[in-house]
């Protein structure tokens, strides 16, 4: 479902060129559970951004569900991102002025879904994540673990094919970190592809397929199928 062929991403910093991704080939099947590990600066976040359509490769081809997304314009790219990809960030990225419910609704608001429908969807999703009594709390009234669960609810509300999590536990204590990972794994069991970027081996090793990146190259992949 995700096909990366010969992906290069070169940043220009000053007059130096940094090869963030160096001829990356990667093929991910629907429903896979995959972790990307590696030291900082190894290109794992860049890889995630390219998979998430936030960044465009300098060269190479990216097929998402058999569609070539490297040639899409901004509008179609945004549309694809909205409907197929859910993001979970290290710093949650909840809007502080909105309640948990409104934050979860946001993707549907941007899509133009009717208020009743999106309210119900957001309530159901939050309830299924054990936050039924936190619907109308603002992010600053929630604990870190609760915030991340709200963010995960937001990432799943559009029923995406893939969830991309960039250090989802990086800002949480062990206990709530474990809860969040278990929640993501549960979602994976409903056949959503899950890709986690982390430098925490304890979390990375839980994934069925593990990728190790060094200097913009995929060094290890325990599932070369």
């Amino acid at each position, binding site marked *: 479902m995700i096909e990366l062929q010969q992906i290069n991403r070169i940043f220009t910093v000053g007059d130096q060129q940094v090869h963030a991704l160096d001829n990356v080939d990667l093929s991910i099947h629907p429903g896979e559970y995959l972790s990307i590990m590696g030291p900082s600066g190894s290109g794992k976040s860049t890889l995630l951004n390219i998979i998430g359509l936030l960044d465009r490769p300098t060269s190479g081809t990216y097929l998402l569900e058999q569609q070539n997304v490297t040639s899409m314009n901004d509008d179609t790219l945004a549309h694809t991102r909205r409907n197929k990809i859910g993001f979970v960030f290290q710093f949650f990225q909840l809007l502080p*002025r909105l309640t948990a419910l409104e934050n979860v609704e946001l993707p549907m608001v941007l899509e133009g879904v009717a208020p009743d429908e999106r309210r119900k969807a957001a309530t159901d999703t939050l309830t299924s994540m054990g936050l039924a009594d936190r619907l109308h709390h603002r992010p600053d009234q929630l604990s870190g673990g609760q915030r991340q669960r709200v963010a995960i609810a937001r990432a799943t509300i559009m029923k995406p094919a893939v969830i991309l999590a960039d250090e989802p536990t990086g800002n949480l204590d062990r206990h709530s970190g474990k809860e969040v990972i278990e929640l993501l794994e549960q979602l994976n069991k409903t056949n959503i592809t899950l890709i986690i970027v982390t430098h925490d081996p304890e979390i990375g090793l839980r994934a069925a397929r593990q990728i190790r990146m060094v200097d913009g190259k995929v060094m290890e992949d325990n599932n070369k199928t």
Partner: protein
Amino acid sequence: MRLIDTLQYAVSALFRHRIRTVLILLAMSIGVASIIILTSLGKGAQRYVQGEFASLGTNLVIVIPGRTETTGGAPTMFIGETPRDLTLDDAQALKYHYSVRRIAPLVVGQAAISYGGKERDVPILGSTSELLNIRHWSLAQGKFLPKGDIDRASSVCVIGIKVKRELFGPENALGEWVRIGDRRYRVIGVLASEGRSIGLDVQELAIIPAASAQALFNTPNVFRILVEAKNRESIPSVIEHVEQTIAERHQGERDVTVITQDAVLATFDRILGALTMTVGGIAAISLVVAGILIMNVMLVSVSQRTSEIGLLKALGSPKKQITVLFLTEAFLLSSLGAVIGVAIGQLASWLIGRAYPALPLGAPLWALISSVAVAIGTGLLFAALPARRAAGLDPVEALVHR
């Protein structure tokens, strides 16, 4: 994204940043309010002048003896040697034209008026019964000068209300004899009118028949002849009639100056109209300043909300949507500011109107509409750059921004 959601999103962002919202609203509303106040002052001055002229009489042609042979500039109104003076017969002759409704000759002088040991110096106006209607005056008591032969010097007078008060106090003045100069006149009426008509305070006048005034001041001449045309359109033909008639009577010399108050009024109108536009334009500059303030604050807002914009992008907002979100904020700010400004402006105009009742204030409709339009226009114009900057942010960098 639905329109209502776009609005709601913008409103929630405005509420989140209350201080900047209030500041922009303040700047916008001051700009709009100043346009409205200044134009309504200008318009008030215009209406005031119009009102003053209307109180002089309508469709009036004023005949002045002598002719100044100049190509431009105002006719000399109070000085100038006269080759041949106007007389009461001239005035009489001007009446016979189908477009002339009324005429009134004016003989002007200054004399002492006294009653019961009290004496006072007042302007004396010699005229005929028609003057009352030409000048739109009204009487408090009694009658105005009697109709009849223009040459008849009857010993009656009509006095202004202030003269009446000062000479008679609360007592009845009608039927009493007063002395003006060295003659005696019976008071037959008291004028009710207030206000001034070019230099003469109506309350301080004494009016006697024209022939009586000529006898009193020992002159055969007339200071002015007021001719009222039937309507505005017939004024040119009345002027022609006046000049021809005078020429016939003065051995072919057109030795009078004829002015119409319309010409004077039109000039005042133009000057004050231009003045109103100018002050309105100056006030509009403050709106541009408000627009620049909006741009500034919006730019700051874009950089403060970088990670929010990054999030919107990650959640699948296209550039267009982000542009629309920011422009909506600017639109809400500027239109709300404009509405507040209109309210402040109208309130201030009303208060000034209360403080100076003589000035008929009221902002013209074009000022209301254009100030609101300019406010919203500059708001959107100056928000375009920040909105485009927001839309053009790189989502990866925007998300990392904290």
